């Protein structure tokens, strides 16, 4: 009897929980960490939706997409947050994502027309270096200099893939030649962003591939003004981070509401100083002063998702061939 009572109790408890709808959001690891935007956005949306938001952190953007593809239509995820435009065409091809009603008046350097994915933040890739040193102002100048750089592997990291696209966007067919010239500047290649950035902070290399907004972290959170992003005359490639709703979601309205919340003033205000990227919609008060100190490129570069998709394999092969020598 005791067991029966216990079992019934459990069953009732489960049902009570089931009455609160649950929104499952898959995102990359650093988004959901204590220091990322995850916790504040979760609390903010839960306050207005009467639902339970569950973030699941998974490696980075590429790992995220693989995961959704592995799960297919059986996925428990309602929203995937943290892919970027380089992965967007691939993500669409899976047919796992559904158009969303969420939209906003974006403050992006580019026009946004896609109806499946919404951009929630963005940044410029850049090499970050120590203030006070002489820095090259283009890839060609970098190749001619003896500065050492650490980059990420495009096969396992989204910034690494972004760099491939950056070189391709600037130099087109000359990309192999540029990689060839750069190969003696590349100290090493790491599997992910954090290893590369760690090597740079430890003084292993002169520069590291990161974002123009990285120095803002050091200024705002650490009061450290010794890091700066190096402006390149030829322009900077952008990373636009996107989120989308899964077609198989059992909470489609809630998912749309979440995406809309993500684009709202509250969430957008949280992103800059937790994710260290620019908000997709500028909050009314603007950004913290530290962001004014960072470089703003004159020219923004971005390949369309379709171009990025079609150039991916070729660009990777060129990169591998040049650096394997």
């Amino acid at each position, binding site marked *: 009897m005791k067991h029966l009572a216990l079992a019934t109790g459990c069953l009732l408890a489960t049902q009570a929980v089931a009455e609160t709808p649950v929104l499952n959001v*898959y995102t990359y*690891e*650093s988004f959901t*960490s*204590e*220091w*990322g935007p995850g916790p504040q956005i979760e609390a903010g949306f839960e306050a207005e939706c009467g639902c339970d938001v*569950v*973030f*699941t*952190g*998974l*490696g980075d953007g*590429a*790992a995220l*997409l*693989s*995961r959704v*593809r*592995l*799960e297919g239509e*059986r996925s*428990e995820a309602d929203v995937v947050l943290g892919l970027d435009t380089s992965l967007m065409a*691939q993500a669409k091809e899976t047919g796992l994502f559904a158009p969303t009603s969420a939209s906003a008046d974006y403050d992006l350097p580019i026009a946004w027309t896609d109806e499946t994915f919404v951009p929630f933040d963005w940044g410029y890739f850049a090499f970050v270096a120590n203030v006070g040193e002489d820095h090259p102002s283009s890839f060609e100048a970098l190749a001619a200099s003896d500065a050492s750089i650490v980059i990420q*592997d*495009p*096969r*396992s990291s989204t910034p690494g893939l972004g760099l491939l696209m950056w070189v391709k966007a600037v130099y087109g067919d000359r990309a192999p030649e540029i990689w060839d010239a750069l*190969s003696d500047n*590349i*100290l*090493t*290649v*790491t*599997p992910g*962003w*954090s*290893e590369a*950035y*760690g*090597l740079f*902070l*430890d*003084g*292993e*290399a002169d520069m590291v591939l990161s974002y123009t907004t*990285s120095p803002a*972290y*050091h200024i705002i*959170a650490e009061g450290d003004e010794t890091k700066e992003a190096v402006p390149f005359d030829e322009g900077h490639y952008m990373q636009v981070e996107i989120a989308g709703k899964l077609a198989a979601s059992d909470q489609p309205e809630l998912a749309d509401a979440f995406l809309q919340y993500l684009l709202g003033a509250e969430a957008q205000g949280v992103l800059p100083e937790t994710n*260290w990227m620019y908000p997709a919609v500028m909050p009314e008060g603007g950004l913290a002063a530290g962001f004014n100190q960072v470089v703003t490129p004159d020219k923004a570069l971005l390949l369309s998702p379709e171009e990025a998709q079609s150039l991916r394999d070729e660009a*990777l092969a060129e*990169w*591998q061939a040049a*650096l*394997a*020598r």
Partner: protein
Amino acid sequence: MAGRAGPLGRAAGGAAGLALVVLLVAPLVMTFLKAGEGRLPGPAEYGALRFTLVQATLSAILSVLVALPVARALARRRFPGRRLFVTLTGAPFLLPVAVAVLGLLAVFGARGWVNDLLGLAGLGPWRIYGLHGVVLAHVFFNMPLATRMLLQGWSAIPAERFRLAATLDLPPGQVFRLLEWPMLRQVVPGALAAIFAICLGSFSVALILGGGPRATTLELAIYQAFLFDFDLGRAALLALMQSGVVALAAVISLRLARMDGSGSGLGRERQRWDAPGGWRRALDCVWLVLAGLFLTLPLLALVLDGIGGLADLPARIWPAMGNSVAISLGCAALTVCLSLALSAPMARWSEGLGLMPLALSPLVLGTGYFLILNIWVSPARLALPVTLLVNTLMALPFCLRLIAPAWARAEADHGRLASQLGLTGPARLRWLLLPRMRGALGFGAGIAAALSMGDLGVITLFGSPERETLPLLMYRLLGAYRTDAASGAALVLLAMSFGIFFLFDRLGGRDA
């Protein structure tokens, strides 16, 4: 030998072997089943295979070559703090990869201590990046394993033999030929194969220290197939290729290894009568000092680096530590049970089988389990149990390598007497085998616990909404620019991996 295993032993071994085969083969099959269109491995993948073989072979040979004089010196010298020395120099093997790389760079990096010294001497900076860096790191990780395996071999030579050699006044050369060489023939192939297999799966160390795509290993090619191309078929094929190489190495090593011919002793306290003095003594001393510096300086650097970050650690460190300890203890218990079961038949097939998990990419293993679980339940809910399972499989080869020979030796030395006394089944295990295997059991459990503690592995693949382990916390701190706190977390991780190993090894007691 196999004839002497009881029916119970054969049944236990058979069951464990079968479970192991299913656990290893099912994920591969599942990955193949799920594979859609893709391309076959091409020149890039064969290049990766070549580099993988070269670095793994070099790393294995060098690790064992360096370990030989060190283990010999340890076996025949007695000095204050020897036990501490043995334990400390074993530590790098237990270190999480990401942590160890930080320590190595603090010593060998551009601003490391070695370059500081070179700078004082007016010599140019030495760069660690390249094949030499990969091999250096692998020797750092694996030489401790080789040393411990060899040391166990040396201490397994019965003390009576050395006493006899001393009575006969045999010169060192003869002692080597008659006593040490037969032992080495038995132990060295196993050590080579184990280290070769470990280095085969290397991925981030090879990429970071190898200096770029030149240093692409098979494991990285698997990552590419899986993450970049989402080509599950190619990922599984590459994983199969990796398993094939390890299986080949395991077969060769088992063929080369010969059973110990030195017979049994009374297990008395070893006292080396042959330890020669003079220049040999000085040389032993040099080897010990060099090995000690090489293996402990990076650890020291990690400690110095991490102390400052301890204050920055978030409160979440506590539950993370709890989760890590739980996984680690579970992994130690499971691994030891599985190793005992596989040791019971005292057959080569079961020992060879136990090595196979080394051959499987954790990524493919994890993905396979993911696909299987996904049929019934959301895999994220089972992230911790699956982590436990994968960690157990990954630790099994090391644990089995220690326990199986100890079991065989106990049987060879005392089995006949036990059989005459009618000591069979569980009683034999309780009264004969377990007490004689204490050292190996403690060491094996310690290794399993420590390896599992430091493993980041599949938990990032599965993702877990709430549960956080210590390595995952460190990874998150790094991803959030919190480098100081991450160093602090690395230090905690180091202390815990090391502490739990030390505890088990102490419980095991006497050997070494």
